[in-house]
């Protein structure tokens, strides 16, 4: 018992550090580790990972709020779309076959990995300081943050708000269905569609994940999906890891971390898809 508790805490620390840095939920790491590594029923893995997402979000957000990295208005506005999506997704869980969950989750991992590769080889996205988007202006979404790596204040403008909102709704549905924060989708919505710089995108994604996950967490809380002996040591490890990760992220170029993370994402994605088809590589 002590043995498994210690492993859960360590997995949590690892997931918390990476989750806080990349703006993705611990669920990305936790669900595959629990189902593939521990052979836990996907129902309990999803329950644990939704708690993991909230732990990552709250742990990381404390530091990001203190240092003014994230964009609170962007988060609040887009949360309307994600939380509606999350409720819809959670309601669909009982209806959909777990095989589809595995395959959907695997594809999600796989494409997030591919997207990160594109980011690294794609040309550096220029910070958008000139755009004059009417919706962004009306909603006061434009922001500013201090980059500790570049050692300067960066002002940025937000554009394509409707497209961002649509991607966020999809992210919400995926989140409720799979028990993940679907942070990768959220980062893509802000970074790629709305042209926000990566660090505010990632930290704002972290903030939003908590509310998205909370919108479906109570549904899991009373249906037996949460095993506290697994979720609690995980959450404690994650809060510790996310606190560290949110400080590390601000001083380092995230490009390096993406490079380390890509093969893990793609490998786990393929594993989940195969498991959905009934093939188990590890056993």
């Amino acid at each position, binding site marked *: *018992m*002590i043995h498994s*508790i210690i492993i859960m805490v360590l997995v949590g620390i690892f997931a918390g550090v990476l989750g806080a840095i990349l703006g993705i939920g611990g669920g990305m790491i936790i669900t595959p580790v629990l189902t593939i590594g521990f052979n836990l029923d996907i129902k309990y893995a999803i329950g644990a990972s939704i*708690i993991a997402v*909230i*732990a990552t*979000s*709250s*742990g990381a*957000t*404390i530091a990001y*709020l*203190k240092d*003014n990295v*994230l964009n*609170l*208005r962007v988060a*609040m*506005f887009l*949360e*309307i779309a994600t*939380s*509606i999506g*999350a*409720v819809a997704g*959670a*309601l669909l869980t*009982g209806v959909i076959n777990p095989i589809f969950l595995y395959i959907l989750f695997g594809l999600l991992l796989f494409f997030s990995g591919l997207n990160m590769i594109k980011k690294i080889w794609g040309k550096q996205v220029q910070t958008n300081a000139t755009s004059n988007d009417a919706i962004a202006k009306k*909603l*006061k979404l434009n*922001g*500013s943050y201090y980059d500790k790596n570049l050692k300067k204040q960066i002002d940025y403008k937000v554009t394509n708000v409707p497209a961002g909102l649509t991607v966020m709704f999809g992210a919400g549905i995926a989140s409720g269905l799979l028990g993940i924060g679907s942070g990768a989708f959220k980062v893509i919505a802000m970074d790629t569609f709305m042209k926000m710089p990566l660090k505010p995108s990632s930290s704002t994604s972290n*903030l939003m994940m*908590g*509310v998205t*996950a*909370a*919108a*479906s*967490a*109570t*549904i*899991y*809380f*009373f*249906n*037996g999906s*949460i095993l*506290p*002996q697994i*979720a*609690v*040591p995980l*959450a*404690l490890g994650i*809060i510790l890891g996310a606190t560290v990760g949110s400080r590390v992220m601000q001083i380092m170029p995230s490009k390096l971390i993406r490079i380390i993370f890509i093969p893990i994402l793609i490998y786990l994605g393929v594993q989940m898809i195969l498991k959905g088809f009934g093939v188990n590589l590890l056993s």
Partner: protein
Amino acid sequence: MSNQNNVKNSQAEQKAENIRIEQLIGKIMRIGVIISVIIMLFGLVLYIVTGTTGFGSHYYLTSFSQLLKGIISLKPYSIMMLGVFALILTPVLRVVVSIYSFYKEHDKMYVIITTIVFIILLISFFLGTFLHL
């Protein structure tokens, strides 16, 4: 010229407003996280010491009154679940404090936006807690 200054002033004002709101929310969230960590740690230690969750392996929570009963009889399962519940509440707390902060800064539009998010959260709580979906 004066128009330009006005724009600059309102931008500076908005930045200052953002910082005030973020600091307050950050402080409240820190308190929420610390409380849930303390409860979870207590439950986990109790679980390790007693070597049992206090229930059979097929037991699970279906209501708040069950949770309360378990807490009163110091069941490790129930105390850990209380910590988990406190953790689930931290993002919700963040939304509530945001409504108050935007209100204090006279930002009506964001009071409305944040209230909508809060209402959706309440609906999801209702679905999960009372309808057991």
